């Protein structure tokens, strides 16, 4: 069937009847949230187990079940491989993995797909797992990609039932309180997992740093945790967070960032009480810096900036340019450090900032946001999931919720990456619909969504180079022969969920080339 964007999506996957995407705010939820079984424990009961294997036995994890993970240790995470290896050794097969995201370090999962230990994956697949799955025919059911808020919603709604949640923590006590803020391998918030911990049938905290009771802040709470396992190493500190993220030095990317900052200034939103989302990509990092400088020049104090936390955002807080940082993950060491010491650097979970089925999202309070894309199209639709060759690339992150919430959503992209045009007639995959995108900023100028005539007028009045999207596309296209386009078959590799649980697009297997 076709959804409202004209994207062809399957009616059913397994037992699940799919709902087509009908508009950014079209779906109205009904019914009640799912819940885990009741349980009580008596004083003095022990939750500490000796190994991952013991935890697998204690939780009753069996073939066919679903296990979940968070990605706060990013490319330094050891836990996913540890647990799946242990399952394989214990003869458990047919697992559904439900990570927030996989990274190149999780390449061994490819072998576990081949030998049947892992047969389904719902989560972002960065790196070798994504490349492998993209070949098609590898998983029993298509992968499902969800945004931060979309994943949270799916768990609460019972769309995904987690049998056992494994939660890596840089610090925990033996009673099951855990966090990512302290400990030898601090990674910043692990709050992606707070929903898993509360809705999974069984919750296991795994740490390399056992602290005396109480370990706090209580990102993961004792009342949610069934078992605690201590391991020698939980992750590679060098790959968890970057030292300092570098602002791009590319003149083209810096120009895009300057244009984006100038657009924020021209938009009229930049005044006392301003709020914005700072990114970690090269362009958005630079745009964040330029907006900070503009606030300083104009003497503006903002209400809040939203992370992922970076040193740059922490500096903006310390310079008094915003009252608070709201942060769901730390992209560098300075951000993790700041959370330990500064009560205005506030920790929050995806349920707080992004959940569609909720009574409020922080992203809805945002004035401005800078987001990236692998492709954008003439309808302002944005793709962050796939490459122009149809390969699964990136997760959605908070892209959908930020774009849906912010009053001014700017997509900051170069018009060309090497020989590859970024502005296309129709994106390979829709991640975020054009209806929630306000403008696309490239080095060639700013294209304003026709829905935002008001913005366009402001930009023009400020002397900004407002251009048509088609005009910028034509200019970039003149510089290269068009790349060939993949021909997609029928087999669905992955579903892309909109944040409300409806299907915005399906990624199909590449069968040939035009």
């Amino acid at each position: 069937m076709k959804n409202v964007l004209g994207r062809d999506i399957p009616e059913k996957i397994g037992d699940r009847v799919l709902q087509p995407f009908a508009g950014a705010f079209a779906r109205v939820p009904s019914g009640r949230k799912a819940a885990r079984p009741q349980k009580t424990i008596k004083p003095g009961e022990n939750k500490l187990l000796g190994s991952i294997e013991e935890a697998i036995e204690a939780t009753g994890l069996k073939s066919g079940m679903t296990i979940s993970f968070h990605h706060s240790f990013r490319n330094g995470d050891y836990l996913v491989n540890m647990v799946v290896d242990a399952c394989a050794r214990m003869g458990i097969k047919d697992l559904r993995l439900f990570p927030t995201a996989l990274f190149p370090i999780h390449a061994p999962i490819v072998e576990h797909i081949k030998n049947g230990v892992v047969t389904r994956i719902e989560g972002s697949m960065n790196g070798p797992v994504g490349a492998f799955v993209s070949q098609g025919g590898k998983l029993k059911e298509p992968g499902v990609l969800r945004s931060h808020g979309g994943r949270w919603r799916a768990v609460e709604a019972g769309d995904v039932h987690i049998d056992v949640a494994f939660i890596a923590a840089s610090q925990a006590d033996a009673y099951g309180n855990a966090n990512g803020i302290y400990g030898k391998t601090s990674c910043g918030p692990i709050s992606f997992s707070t929903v898993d911990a509360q809705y999974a049938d069984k919750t296991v905290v795994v740490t390399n740093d056992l602290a005396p009771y109480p370990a706090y802040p209580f990102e993961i709470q004792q009342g949610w945790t069934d078992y605690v396992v201590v391991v020698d190493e939980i992750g590679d500190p060098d790959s968890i967070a970057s030292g300092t993220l570098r602002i791009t030095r590319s003149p083209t990317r810096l120009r895009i960032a300057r244009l984006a900052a100038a657009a924020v200034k021209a938009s009229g939103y930049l005044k006392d009480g301003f709020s914005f989302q700072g990114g970690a990509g090269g362009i958005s990092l630079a745009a964040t810096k330029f907006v900070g400088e503009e606030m300083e020049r104009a003497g503006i104090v903002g209400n809040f900036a939203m992370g992922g936390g970076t040193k740059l955002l922490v500096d903006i807080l310390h310079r008094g340019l915003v009252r608070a940082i709201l942060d769901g993950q730390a992209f560098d060491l300075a951000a993790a450090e700041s959370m330990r010491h500064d009560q205005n650097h506030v920790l929050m979970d995806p349920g707080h900032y992004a959940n569609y089925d909720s009574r409020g999202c922080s992203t809805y309070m945002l004035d401005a946001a800078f987001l990236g894309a692998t492709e954008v199209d003439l309808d302002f639709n944005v793709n962050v999931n796939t490459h122009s060759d149809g390969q699964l690339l990136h997760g959605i992150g908070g892209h959908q919720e930020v774009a849906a919430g912010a009053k001014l959503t700017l997509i900051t992209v170069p018009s060309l990456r090497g020989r590859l045009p970024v502005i296309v007639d129709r994106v390979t995959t829709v991640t975020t619909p054009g209806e929630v995108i306000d403008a696309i900023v490239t080095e060639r100028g700013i294209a304003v969504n026709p829905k935002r005539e008001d913005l366009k007028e402001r930009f023009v009045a400020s002397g900004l180079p407002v251009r048509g999207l088609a005009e910028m596309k034509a200019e970039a296209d003149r510089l290269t022969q068009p790349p060939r386009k993949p021909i997609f078959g029928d087999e669905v590799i992955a579903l892309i969920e909109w944040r409300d649980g409806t299907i915005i697009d399906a990624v199909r297997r590449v069968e040939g080339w035009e």
Partner: protein
Amino acid sequence: MSEQAAVGAANKGDCIVRAVVSDKLEVKVQTSSEDLFGTGLKVVVEETLSALGSPKVRVDVEEHGALDYVIRARVEAALRRVLPELAVWRKEIERGRTGRDRLRRTRLYAPGNNPRLLAGIELHGADCVLLDLEDSVPLAEKSSARILVKHLLSDVDFPEVWVRINPLSTYGRDDLAEVMLARPHGICLPKAESADDVKELSEELARLEHENGIDPGSTFIMPIIETGKGVLHAEEIASADERVVIMAFGAEDYTRDVGARRTRDALLYARSRIVAACAAAGIQASDTVYADVDDEEGLIDETKHIRDLGFVGKGAINPRQIEPIHGVFRPTDEEVEQARKIISVAREAEEKGIGAVAIGGKMIDRPVLERAKRTVDLADRLQEGWL
């Protein structure tokens, strides 16, 4: 001439093209994504070869994100090394016109041999872009750079674009012959030391304009003064030819030539003399570049200094320097308001036939009025730009 040649580098945005004389025409292409780019690359290479007369060569292209004009340039450069008698690639192009007194607050330098730095160079908002074949291009790349610049000029529109050639005594004539095929707005003459230097270039331009069907006299000249002798002859250089619309100062070579350190004092005489020479000839004066890209404060300070000396623009070696320089040349709202007031008071006085008028006790004489007009003119021109 040699049997084989390799041009380009394994850098982002570039490609390596290897050409070997063979008994038939063969093309091999290597790319990061054969699926996406293989076909398109072959089309570009084959079209280029056909424009060059389909010579019998084996061509290997190793692509690293190069745009089409870079591929074409590298293919042509490699082929011309192995077959010097080959036809020269050219494309019919329309180049938009530019004016003698166009706003030229910034001239942005870009090395003519570096595709990564040339990509998008037209988009940074510089008043003019200056593609360099001289100091930033090593000897071994002189020929491939002038070919690359020609192809860039053939594919990309610029508000105003200049090419800095090598001195006519070295490779300048070869540079001109190549780049004039793609009709830049102007030619920048380094180390100009006499009126004859300019006239020699002007005659060469006249010949090439004629050959290439370009309007006679439409190619501008920007002499760069960068020696003691050049400074002493600034006046004759500035007024040597109708094509000269702007004259620039090059402090790095100048200080070396006269044995000075680069201090403000050491440059003051040269700068002042250049400004005076330009004023006398009725052309624009543009200052030297500021070498420390990371020192924005220093750049702004120096730009204010040279603006006060009478320069209307300054060189930039990185796009990051454009906004700070433009900022210095942007009149403040108060300045514009004051200037408009001066103009209106002066007009009123003229209508009433009053000779001398004053604002706040200050006489409005002709120079004051002229300056006010320039300020308002600049403010009006800047209406459209955000930089």
